[in-house]
């Protein structure tokens, strides 16, 4: 019986490991901004979302449709998660096992208060979902739900 339990424990542990293979780095919000604002050829699409946000979850498939490049320019989709950091293991990781997300998932670590929201974009009230589009210093911003057609339009305005 004991042996059985040990095997069972090992099995569960390894299954768990496998499921959490997708690593989700924590990244401070200002560090994330620095990364996407650096001059490069890359078009950045950054979606702020959370597992508890209904329209965010609904629009994930729209972001999955974004191709890897757009007019020969590389496109980088970053899905910046805003769940509470102490709920990463209990909420975010299990969520990622059930939902396919093509873009890079990061956990955005935000400081106390809401001053950081303005640093992402001046017209953002803080409501999610919200998405920013960046290319060589040009930025477009969208607060609220979005579909692929609108995503494409926003990317087009960056050229």
């Amino acid at each position, binding site marked *: 019986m004991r042996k059985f339990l040990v095997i069972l424990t090992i099995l569960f542990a390894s299954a768990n490991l496998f499921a959490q293979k997708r690593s989700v780095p924590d990244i401070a919000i200002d560090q994330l901004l620095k990364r996407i604002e650096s001059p490069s050829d890359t078009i950045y699409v950054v979606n702020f979302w*959370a597992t*508890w*946000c*209904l*329209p965010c979850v609904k629009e994930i498939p729209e972001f999955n449709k974004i191709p890897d490049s757009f007019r020969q320019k590389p496109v980088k989709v970053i899905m910046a998660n*805003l769940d*509470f950091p*102490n709920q990463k293991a209990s909420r975010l990781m299990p969520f990622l096992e059930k939902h396919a997300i093509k873009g890079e998932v990061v956990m955005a670590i*935000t400081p*106390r*208060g*809401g*001053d950081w*929201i*303005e640093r992402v974009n*001046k*017209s*953002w*009230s*803080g*409501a*999610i*979902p919200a998405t920013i589009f960046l290319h060589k210093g040009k930025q477009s911003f969208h*607060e*609220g*739900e979005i579909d692929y057609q609108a995503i494409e339009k926003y990317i087009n305005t960056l050229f």
Partner: protein
Amino acid sequence: MKHILLAMALVLGMGVTAQLKVGDKAPSFNLKNIDGKKVSLDDYKDQKGVVVVFTCNHCPYAVLYEARLVELQKQFGPKKFPIIAINPNDSTIVPADGFSKMITNAAEKGFNFPYLLDDEQLFKKYGATRTPHVYLLKNEGKHFSVAYIGAIDDNPQDASDVKDAYVAQAIEAILAGNKPKVTETRAVGCTIKFK
């Protein structure tokens, strides 16, 4: 400068709604409460101010603040700064925010303040974009003016670890005859669901 930027934002159509600014006259309203009676801002003329909070049943960030709203009402209701909660969400989009669900939610959470259904899209006149979204109003005698816009405090997840209780501090400042130190804050929240 701020005004110019705001005007530009409006011209460019970035502002979907007319955003109230601190100091502006607060739009009046007359909306149905969960007890079936209408509640108007004009009913509050004998108060020193009102905490108008756009909130709802379903949004986890709104839920996190429910107990804190009850506490704010306990603390500041008697000091003539009562709370009026307003649900701006369209229940055909989020059934959990329907009128009957508002009644049960208020009963379960022990709401000690009116909880109104915004079936006139009042939130647009205020420029509210998320739940929860607070507009602290100050009674100026002939009308109410906006004294603070934003979050309830600086820690949505943990009420026991709040450093800046924005709304409470703003009310205390007004009660002491001063202007609130912080008049605008931003916070993560749920978008308002409307058609």
